[in-house]
C-alpha cells in the first residue's frame, strides 16, 4: 500500500511504497527522502540522460510468477565515461529487484543477506577471485566507482545527489551475477543473473521510442556527415573526415579534441553491411591498436560490428589474419594467475601465447565506450586453434579496474571478403596466426574417420582369419641324411655293430676306392589336400652349428603335374669376435606357398650341404596348411598408419613456426597444440 505525500519543493503528489527510501518529483525534479512525518528535500536531480533504454517508468511485468512494476530508476556515471541505468522492480510480494542495464544487457539482482563475511574492496582486483564463503567463489569483473547522476520515480535506497559509490561486479558460471555495494558498512550483497528482457514480460510504461536505424548527424568540428548506427549506445565518435574525437552522450555530438590519427589502412568501410555466419552485421567503428615487442611495433585493426540484435562483435585483422571476437562473461572463464601457462575450458587446453600492452592509436566511427587515443589495456592471449581467449585488463581513473574476456574464432580471409562482398581477392596472410588452424591437423582430423574405419575392418579380417586358419599338419618327417644319401648308407654289418658308431661312415679299405655319394632325394607318400583356399607352410629344422643344410623342395600335383617349388635353408653360425659373442642365421626356416587346388600331392625333398658328409644326422620337415600370417595384417596396418604418420611431420613443423612467435615458446620447437 503506497503512502501519498506532498513534494517538499512544489507540493505535487509523491508516492512512497513500502521500502521506498527516496522519491523524485516528476514535476520539479526534487529529491525527497522518506521521513517519519513529511518527506525531506535533499536536493534536485539533473535531467535524465537519454540512454536509449527500452524500459519506461510504470511498466509492469512478471518474474518467477510474481507481478512487478518498474517503480524507479537511477542513472549512474562510470569513471571511463558513459551512463547506465539501474531500474527498481517493486514486486507484489513487497520485495525490490535491481535491474541494471548496460550495453543492451540486463542483470537482475536482489538483496541477499550474506552467509559469510564479505571481502573488503581493497582485497579485490579485476579478474581475481572473490571468495564469498558459503555464497560461492566469483570472478571479479570490475571494481570501480559509480557516481549518482539522476533519478526518477521511487528509489529503494538512500541516494544522495553527486555521491560516489564503490562497487564490485562479480561474475559466475551460467550467467550468474552479483554485486558488492560498498556504499554501506558492512557492504551490501546483491545476487542474481543476467536475464533476457523477454523473460520479464514487460508491458507498458512511459518511455521514449527506441531510436532504431541510422541517425544522420554532422560533425560539430568539420560539419562532415556522420551516420550513427547505434545512437542509443554510442559514447564516442571518431570523425573519419577531420579526425576529431566527439562525445555522443545524450544523443548529441560534442567536440572533445582533435586526434593525430595514423593512416587509415582499413578494408571494411564504416557503414558497410554484410552477412557473417548467417547474421547481418554493420561495421560501425574502426580501431587501430598496436603493441611493441622487442622495440618493434605490431599493429592490428579492429572493426566494431553491430549485429541484428543490437549486440556488438569485433572483427580483428593483423598481418592478413582475421578473426571474429565476442565477449565472454568473466565468470565463465577459469581463474588465471600470472604464471599460469594453460587453462582448461570448454573441453580444450588453452595455451598462453602472449602478454602485451595494447595501445589505441586510431579511432574512426562510433564506439559504445569512451574510447581515447592512447588508451592502454593489458592483453593476455590463450590459444586453442582455431579459437583464442583474450583477457583485457584496464585500469580506471580513481583506482578502479575492469577485466573483459573475449572469445575469438579464426576466419579465412575469403570469408570476410565474401561477408562484405569486398572487391578483389584478400591479401595472403603473413606468417602463421597465433590461433590459425593447423591445415595439416585439419587434414589429419578429416582422415580420422577413415583411419578408425580401416582399423575396425582390419580387426574384423584378422579375427575372421584366426577362426578359419586351423594350422593343420599335412606332413611331418625326420629325414636321416646318412640313410638318404646313397653313397653313405650303412652296411648291414655296420648296422648290427654295437662297437662302432653307426652314424658315420667307416674308413674305406685301402685297396677299394670309396663310392661317390649320389644326390640325396626323398619322395613322400601321397598327401591329400582338401582346402584349395588356404596357404601352405613348409618348415625345415636342423641342429646345424657353424654349418648349413639347404633343402630344395617341390610339392607336385599327382594329377596335373603342377609343382610348387621352394628353397629352404638351415644355416647357423656363432663365435666370439673381439670378446663379443655373435650369432648369424637360424636353425629353422619356413617358406609359405600359395594355396593349391584340392587333390593328391607328393613332396619331393632334396637336401644339400657343403662337402661330402652331411653336417647333421637328420633334418625335420613339416608341411602345414592354413597358417596364420601376421605379415599381411602388418602391411595393412602400415598402409593405414603410414600416411597419417607422414602427415605428422608438416603438422609439427607448422606448430613449431606458430610457437616461434610466442612469448612462451617451448624450448624445443615443434610443440603440438
Amino acid at each position, binding site marked *: 500500500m503506497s503512502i501519498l505525500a506532498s513534494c517538499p519543493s512544489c507540493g505535487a503528489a509523491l508516492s512512497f511504497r513500502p521500502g521506498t527510501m527516496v522519491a523524485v518529483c516528476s514535476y520539479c525534479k526534487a529529491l525527497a527522502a522518506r521521513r517519519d512525518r513529511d518527506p525531506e528535500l535533499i536536493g534536485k536531480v539533473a535531467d535524465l540522460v537519454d540512454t536509449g533504454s527500452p524500459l519506461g517508468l510504470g511498466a509492469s511485468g512478471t518474474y518467477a510468477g510474481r507481478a512487478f512494476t518498474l517503480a524507479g530508476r537511477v542513472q549512474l556515471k562510470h569513471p571511463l565515461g558513459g551512463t547506465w541505468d539501474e531500474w527498481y522492480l517493486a514486486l507484489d510480494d513487497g520485495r525490490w529487484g535491481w535491474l541494471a542495464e548496460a550495453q543492451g544487457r540486463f542483470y537482475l539482482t536482489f538483496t541477499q543477506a550474506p552467509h559469510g563475511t564479505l571481502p573488503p574492496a581493497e582485497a579485490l582486483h579485476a579478474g581475481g577471485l572473490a571468495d564469498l564463503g558459503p555464497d560461492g567463489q566469483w570472478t571479479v569483473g570490475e571494481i570501480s566507482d559509480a557516481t549518482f547522476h539522476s533519478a526518477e520515480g521511487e528509489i529503494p535506497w538512500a541516494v544522495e545527489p553527486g555521491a560516489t559509490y564503490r562497487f564490485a561486479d562479480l561474475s559466475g558460471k551460467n550467467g550468474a551475477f552479483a554485486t558488492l555495494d560498498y556504499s554501506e558498512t558492512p557492504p551490501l550483497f546483491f545476487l542474481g543473473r543476467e536475464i533476457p528482457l523477454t523473460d520479464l514480460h514487460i508491458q507498458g510504461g512511459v518511455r521514449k521510442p527506441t531510436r532504431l536505424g541510422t541517425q544522420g548527424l554532422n560533425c560539430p568540428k568539420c560539419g562532415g556527415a556522420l551516420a550513427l548506427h547505434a545512437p542509443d549506445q554510442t559514447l564516442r565518435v571518431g570523425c573519419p573526415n577531420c579526425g576529431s574525437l566527439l562525445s555522443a552522450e545524450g544523443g548529441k555530438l560534442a567536440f572533445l579534441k582533435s586526434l593525430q590519427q595514423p593512416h587509415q589502412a582499413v578494408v571494411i568501410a564504416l557503414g558497410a553491411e554484410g552477412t557473417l555466419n548467417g547474421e547481418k552485421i554493420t561495421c560501425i567503428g574502426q580501431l587501430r591498436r598496436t603493441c611493441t615487442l622487442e622495440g618493434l611495433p605490431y599493429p592490428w585493426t579492429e572493426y566494431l560490428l553491430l549485429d541484428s540484435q543490437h549486440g556488438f562483435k569485433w572483427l580483428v585483422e593483423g598481418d592478413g589474419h582475421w578473426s571474429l571476437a565476442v565477449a565472454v562473461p568473466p565468470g565463465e572463464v577459469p581463474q588465471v594467475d600470472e604464471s599460469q601457462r594453460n587453462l582448461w575450458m570448454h573441453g580444450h587446453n588453452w595455451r598462453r601465447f602472449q602478454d602485451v600492452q595494447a595501445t589505441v592509436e586510431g579511432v574512426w566511427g562510433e564506439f559504445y565506450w569512451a574510447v581515447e587515443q592512447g588508451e592502454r589495456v593489458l592483453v593476455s592471449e590463450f590459444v586453442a586453434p582455431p579459437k583464442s581467449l583474450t583477457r583485457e585488463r584496464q585500469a580506471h581513473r580513481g583506482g578502479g579496474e575492469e577485466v573483459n574476456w573475449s572469445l575469438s574464432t579464426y576466419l579465412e580471409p575469403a570469408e570476410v571478403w565474401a561477408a562484405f562482398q569486398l572487391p578483389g581477392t584478400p591479401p595472403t596472410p603473413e606468417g602463421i596466426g597465433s590461433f590459425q588452424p593447423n591445415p595439416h591437423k585439419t587434414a589429419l582430423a578429416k582422415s580420422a574417420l577413415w583411419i578408425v574405419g580401416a582399423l575396425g575392418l582390419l580387426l574384423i579380417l584378422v579375427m575372421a582369419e584366426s577362426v578359419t586358419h586351423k594350422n593343420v599338419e599335412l606332413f611331418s618327417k625326420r629325414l636321416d641324411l646318412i640313410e638318404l644319401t646313397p653313397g653313405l648308407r650303412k652296411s648291414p654289418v655296420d648296422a648290427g655293430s654295437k662297437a662302432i658308431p653307426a652314424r658315420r661312415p667307416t674308413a674305406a679299405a685301402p685297396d677299394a676306392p670309396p663310392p661317390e655319394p649320389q644326390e640325396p*632325394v626323398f619322395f613322400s607318400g601321397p598327401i591329400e589336400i582338401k582346402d584349395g583356399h588356404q596357404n601352405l607352410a613348409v618348415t625345415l629344422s636342423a641342429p646345424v652349428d657353424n654349418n648349413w643344410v639347404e633343402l630344395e623342395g617341390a610339392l607336385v600335383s599327382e594329377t*596335373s603335374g603342377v609343382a610348387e617349388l621352394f*628353397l629352404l635353408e638351415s644355416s647357423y653360425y656363432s663365435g666370439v669376435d673381439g670378446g663379443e659373442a655373435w650369432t648369424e642365421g637360424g636353425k629353422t626356416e619356413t617358406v609359405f606357398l600359395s594355396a593349391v587346388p584340392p587333390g593328391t600331392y607328393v613332396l619331393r625333398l632334396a637336401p644339400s650341404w657343403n662337402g661330402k658328409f652331411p653336417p647333421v644326422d637328420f633334418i625335420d620337415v613339416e608341411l602345414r596348411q592354413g597358417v596364420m600370417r601376421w605379415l599381411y595384417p602388418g602391411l595393412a596396418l602400415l598402409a593405414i598408419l603410414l600416411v597419417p604418420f607422414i602427415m605428422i611431420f608438416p603438422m609439427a613443423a607448422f606448430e613449431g613456426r606458430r610457437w616461434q612467435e610466442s612469448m612462451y615458446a617451448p624450448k624445443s620447437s615443434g610443440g603440438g597444440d
Partner: protein
Amino acid sequence: MRIVYLLFLGAGFSLLTANAFFGREFFGQRRRADLPPSVRQTPGAYRTFLHNNGFHGGK
C-alpha cells in the same frame, strides 16, 4: 593426399584379403612350374629340370 591414402589402403587390404581368404602368398623363395610327365616319371630328372629352369640353391 586422400587418393594416395586410398591407394595405400587398397593395396594393404588387397594383400591381406588375398592371403587370408584365397591363400595367396607374395613373398619368399618359391615358384610354380608345370612338370612334364617325363620329369615326374624320372626322379633324377627333377634336379636337371629345376636347374635348367633357373631354380636352384647351393651356397
